[in-house]
């Protein structure tokens, strides 16, 4: 490391363009002071910027000069890069007073003396090891500072107060950090006597860096927290936008529709039910908003989801309430798809003919059998009197169940409502996800299409009250 010393952290390499004379915090911008200047007005400008006596700044430059001439280089760089403040209109550029001039020369002389002394003692060589990392850290900090926006800079400045703030913790941290830095410097001094140069230099560098890290802990914490805050903010914003979008697409639209259809109570009911179901699914459903997000099941991949979907469609189409109660669940296969289709047909029948406002749907998966009960308390009918031409019951329900090796039982009496019971064996291997579509699961269930054992009963006295 060539140890090119650079200005300390709090002197930005490239000051912001002189748009106004003050930063957003009300601190004068870093500019070279044309009045009272001895050499370039750099020290005066820094003193104004940091609000400290100009003598301190000059002394710091002198001390830094001892460290391999860092002070001199820093001064030169600042002179080059820091713009000169335009003099106030009425104020003449006047040279500094003789007392101040003498003082400044004195400080400069001390600095030069220190530089020479340090070089003579072989001090500068070692200091380089420490100043190298410090200089790099300073460059990094300066870049971060440049890239940050005004708000962030203001926050950092406030945090900076915490470093030397009144709390005991920050004092201890500061003292500890300084001790480590001093320790680092001492180690290298001792190293001159005892250890090999490289080893001691490494220790010195490490100790120095640790010290700097400790002193700047609040900044690092703030940086990390900033990052976390920002991420959290983004997530919340997205969440809010998603909820707003959902409410707009669903609830607001439905409310608008309801207002326009206020005269048609059937339509209003249909809209309200449909909206309620959607919102409920969104809030509490497996893929819903409030779910923990583990293993989201796409709709119609399981018996429960498909049946609920079918019930919802009937609700929407016929404007009646369908309340599915489902115990247990199983992944879909073609037989279960037939079961759901038959159940849907039973619901359609009830909705069309039973003259009721509500249909009960109960499904259970138990002992390898999936059963669905569709029940209404409507007008009922005499199943024996139903003509063979009634395709709905004969084909869509019985025929379908028969082809899939299941059973369909219709229990009904005029005036006492109707219950359709459908059941089908659950294929043993049906929990393999890929056979949800057509053609899957054939091997496990033989003779699925024309199973002669599939019993189809249709008698009013099978389960009816006696």
């Amino acid at each position, binding site marked *: 490391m060539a140890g090119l010393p650079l200005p300390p952290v709090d002197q930005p390499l490239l000051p912001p363009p002189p748009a106004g004379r003050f930063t957003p915090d009300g601190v004068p911008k870093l500019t070279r002071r044309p009045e009272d200047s001895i050499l370039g007005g750099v020290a005066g400008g820094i003193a104004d910027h940091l609000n400290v006596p100009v003598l301190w700044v000059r002394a710091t430059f002198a001390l830094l000069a001892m460290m391999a001439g860092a002070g001199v280089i820093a001064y030169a760089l600042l002179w080059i890069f820091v713009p000169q403040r335009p003099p106030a209109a009425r104020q003449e550029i006047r040279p500094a007073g003789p007392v101040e001039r003498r003082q400044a020369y004195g400080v400069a002389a001390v600095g030069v003396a220190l530089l020479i002394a340090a070089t003579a003692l072989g001090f500068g060589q070692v200091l380089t090891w420490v100043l190298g990392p410090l200089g790099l850290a300073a460059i990094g900090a300066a870049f971060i500072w440049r890239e940050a926006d005004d708000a962030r800079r203001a926050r950092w400045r406030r945090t900076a107060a915490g470093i030397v703030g009144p709390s005991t913790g920050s004092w201890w941290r500061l003292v500890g950090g300084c001790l480590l830095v001093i320790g680092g410097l001492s180690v290298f001094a001792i190293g001159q006597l005892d250890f090999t140069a490289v080893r001691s230099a490494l220790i010195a560098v490490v100790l120095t860096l640790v010290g700097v890290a400790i002193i700047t802990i609040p900044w690092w914490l703030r940086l990390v927290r900033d990052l976390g805050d920002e991420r959290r903010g983004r997530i919340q914003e997205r969440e809010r936008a998603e909820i707003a979008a959902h409410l707009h697409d669903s609830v607001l639209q439905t409310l608008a529709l309801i207002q326009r259809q206020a005269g048609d109570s059937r339509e209003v009911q249909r809209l309200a039910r449909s909206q309620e179901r959607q919102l409920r699914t969104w809030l509490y459903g497996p893929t819903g908003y409030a779910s923990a997000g583990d293993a989201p099941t796409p709709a119609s991949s399981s018996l429960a989801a498909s049946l609920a979907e079918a019930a919802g469609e009937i609700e929407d189409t016929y404007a009646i*309430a369908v*309340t599915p*109660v489902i*115990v*247990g669940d199983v992944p879909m296969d073609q037989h279960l798809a037939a079961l759901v289709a038959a159940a849907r047909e039973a619901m359609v029948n009830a909705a069309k003919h039973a003259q009721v406002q509500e249909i009960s749907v*109960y499904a259970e*998966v*138990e002992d390898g059998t999936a059963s669905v009960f569709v029940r209404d308390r409507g007008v009922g009918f005499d199943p024996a009197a139903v003509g063979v031409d009634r395709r709905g019951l004969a084909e869509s329900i019985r025929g379908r169940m028969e082809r899939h090796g299941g059973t369909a039982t219709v229990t009904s009496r005029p005036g006492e409502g109707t*219950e359709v019971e459908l059941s089908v064996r659950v294929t043993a291997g049906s929990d393999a996800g890929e056979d949800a579509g057509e053609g899957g699961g054939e091997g496990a269930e033989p003779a699925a299409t024309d199973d002669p054992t599939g019993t189809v009963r249709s008698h009013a006295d099978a389960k009816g*009250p006696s």
Partner: protein
Amino acid sequence: MSHPVKVFLVDDHALFRTGVKAELAGLDDHRIEVVGEAGSVGEAVVRISSQPPDVVLLDVHMPDGGGRAVLEQVHAKLPDVVFLALSVSDAAEDVIAVIRAGARGYVTKTISGRELADAVVRVAAGDAVFSPRLAGFVLDAFSDRNGPAPVADPELDLLSPREREVLKLLARGYAYKEIAAQLFISIKTVETHVSSVLRKTQKSNRYELSRWASDRRLV
């Protein structure tokens, strides 16, 4: 019944309370009488304690702990006050949680006024009120779908075959009368079975039930 059942409404939505009151009054049902209402947990506890009604219609979701908080603060002090949960929530854990906290039944807010009045009269008479959905949840909770559950107390942790049958018919939308006819038993026996299921749901330490309860920090 000689005097009407005194009903108290607890719901944080004033609009809903008004609606239920109007609906119950519109029935012109002399079996029930709405005697008071409260819009928050604290208000409900104070009013129910000062003038105990017969039946409290309790909303599950409210600020400050919801219906469960009311149950916890009142149920032990006034065991004679019967609670019937009335909620829009269809989440199993909500329903099971209020039942375990002591509610005698659960109905959803979409229930018709007539059915609600019937349910109130039934719980006031000591019955349990199981909506089809609640029956489904309880069946689910007592099923062995996730492998057989360890049975610590067969008296509490298992449903009898008859109770299971009754529950299934409830879930299929049967009324007590219809269940009785279907199973060739008396309505009284159906009521006994349902009350027994309620007791098991409240007291059992079965895994599913305890899980739902502990999710809500009930146990």
